[in-house]
């Protein structure tokens, strides 16, 4: 199954957040969408998940056009996601946070029980998932009482528990420290499977470079460059978008030198450091 964006645009009033973007994501790989702040990364995720409507263009999952469907239908078709800011059900236990994902999807299944998992089956799947994400010891703890790092992992588990073929991860490393980020990267890399596409929006470059099969760089709502981590790393336009042009960098250096020459100021004052 493949997810495809075809000439997708998104306008917020007069602001063009995404312009004619075409991307395709096949199962079996990990994709990263990166770009400077305001490039439109989260907008892409929100359009795929159905939180934002699409101004023009089509988003397809297999042969189905997603962008006219309500959000819960998109999720039912196999698109799951995490959120930039943690959005767990804080007042429910860790286990219950996963169990809710198995709520019957239609009146028919709800009333007849057809195709519906029994309680025991549901619990088995959830416990197996907790074990996979090293959360078994806190199954009965309220999600809101977990430390931040483990809440992040629980949100990850919630996105994977239903075996959705398309998983959108919106900044899984945000707010994590260096060690936690490395663990998170290893965990996500370990979740790569033949029948699953993982699409990552992330600022942590170490993570993005180490686990992605393909990186799509957005700038001002347009695709700047797309390719393997090595290709993106050495791409000049990407460096410019992130760091500014070489002339701009030179200007900053000159300014710093002149300040230093004036004395009285600390050596590094006024320098934008990366």
């Amino acid at each position, binding site marked *: 199954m493949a997810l495809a964006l075809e000439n997708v645009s998104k306008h917020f009033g007069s602001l063009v957040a995404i312009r004619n973007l075409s991307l395709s994501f096949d199962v079996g790989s990990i994709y990263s969408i990166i770009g400077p702040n305001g490039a439109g990364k989260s907008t892409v995720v929100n359009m795929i998940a159905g939180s934002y409507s699409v101004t023009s263009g089509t988003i397809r999952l297999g042969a189905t056009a997603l962008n006219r469907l309500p959000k819960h239908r998109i999720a039912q078709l196999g698109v799951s996601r995490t959120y930039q800011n943690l959005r767990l*059900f804080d007042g429910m236990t860790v286990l219950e946070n996963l169990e809710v994902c198995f709520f019957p*999807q239609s009146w028919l299944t709800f009333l007849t029980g057809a195709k519906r998992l029994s309680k025991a089956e549901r619990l088995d799947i959830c416990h197996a998932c907790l074990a996979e994400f090293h959360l078994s010891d806190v199954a009965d703890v309220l999600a809101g009482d977990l430390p931040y790092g483990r809440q992040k992992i629980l949100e990850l588990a919630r996105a994977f528990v*239903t075996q959705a073929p398309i998983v959108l991860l919106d900044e899984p490393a945000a707010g994590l420290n260096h060690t936690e980020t490395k663990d998170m990267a290893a965990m996500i890399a370990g979740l790569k499977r033949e029948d699953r596409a993982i699409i990552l929006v992330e600022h942590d470059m170490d993570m993005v470079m180490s686990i992605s099969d393909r990186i799509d760089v957005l700038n001002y709502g347009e695709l700047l460059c797309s390719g393997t981590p090595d290709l993106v790393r050495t791409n000049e336009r990407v460096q410019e978008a992130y760091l500014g042009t070489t002339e701009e960098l030179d200007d900053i250096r000159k300014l710093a030198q002149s300040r230093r020459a004036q004395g009285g100021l600390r050596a590094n004052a006024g320098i934008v450091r990366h």
Partner: protein
Amino acid sequence: MGNSVIVRRLGLLAVLALCVVLLALVPYLPSYYVRVADSILIYIILAVGLNLVVGYAGLLDLGFIAFYAVGAYAYALLASGQFDIHLPFIVVLFIGAAAGAIAGVLLGFPVLKLRGDYLAIVTLSFGEIIRIAINNADELTNGPQGIAGLDRASLFGLPLTSPVHFYWLLLVLTVIVCAGVYYMERSILGKAWRALREDQDVVRGLGINTTTLKLLAFALSAAIGGAGGVIFGAFQRFVSPESFTFQESLLVVLIIIIGGVGNIVGVIAGAVVLVILPEILHFAAQYRLLIYGVVLVTVIVLRPGGLVSPRFNLGFIIRKVRTLWLSPSKT
């Protein structure tokens, strides 16, 4: 098995026995006390029903009494001389519940997109609209005069005439409603409702149709309200719009807030307190609302979660009893 376990088991038995004896003794009290007990039970049923919407799904409904009115008028119209229709009580009980559920869905549809304060305002208006409609539909409901001379109810050949009869009926129904709601609370439906209360958008993102989920809460809750209304009609044998004012809706919400939102044990405690309080303070009847206000403020200041702690719920009690009985070593 140690002595302490035996002592604890005996203690538990004593508490259970005490509850049963107290409940069984009520019918032997003077009629006034039986009526108060009936009133408590009716409010427990109503509050447990409303709690589905307010406590679990997190939707503040201030017009709940409208469903109670729908049930009461269902009995008044279908079991009285008004149109000379005399359906049996048990039939009207189901009709009343169904009518309540339909009214619940009718209210649910327009308010689906509203949350918080706006939802409260619209539901409040809905409650008033139903009452005013009843007040003005003279041909159907006799307007403000109400409908009198409702049929004496009977259930499976047993007459329901005295407060004692209704006490037993209400007690059974309370147990059924509490058990049913407890079962729902524990089921995946209850979990989905609690998730809905916490974050509606995320629930949709999990592939759950929140429209269905909300309508189901409104319908089930209103069905319980409707059934309560039928019993009220059969008990009073007289209905008029005056019984279904906004104050009544408010009282049911207060029972939930003061007892403990989303907690059946709390709701029971809240109903007991708020029904008995005005009876004790009968001499100060004109200050009833003021007293409610003082109680509400006191509870919110001292125990913001309600009189009963959220941890002390039906599940907790059942677990406690079960572990003490089956594997006392774990306790």
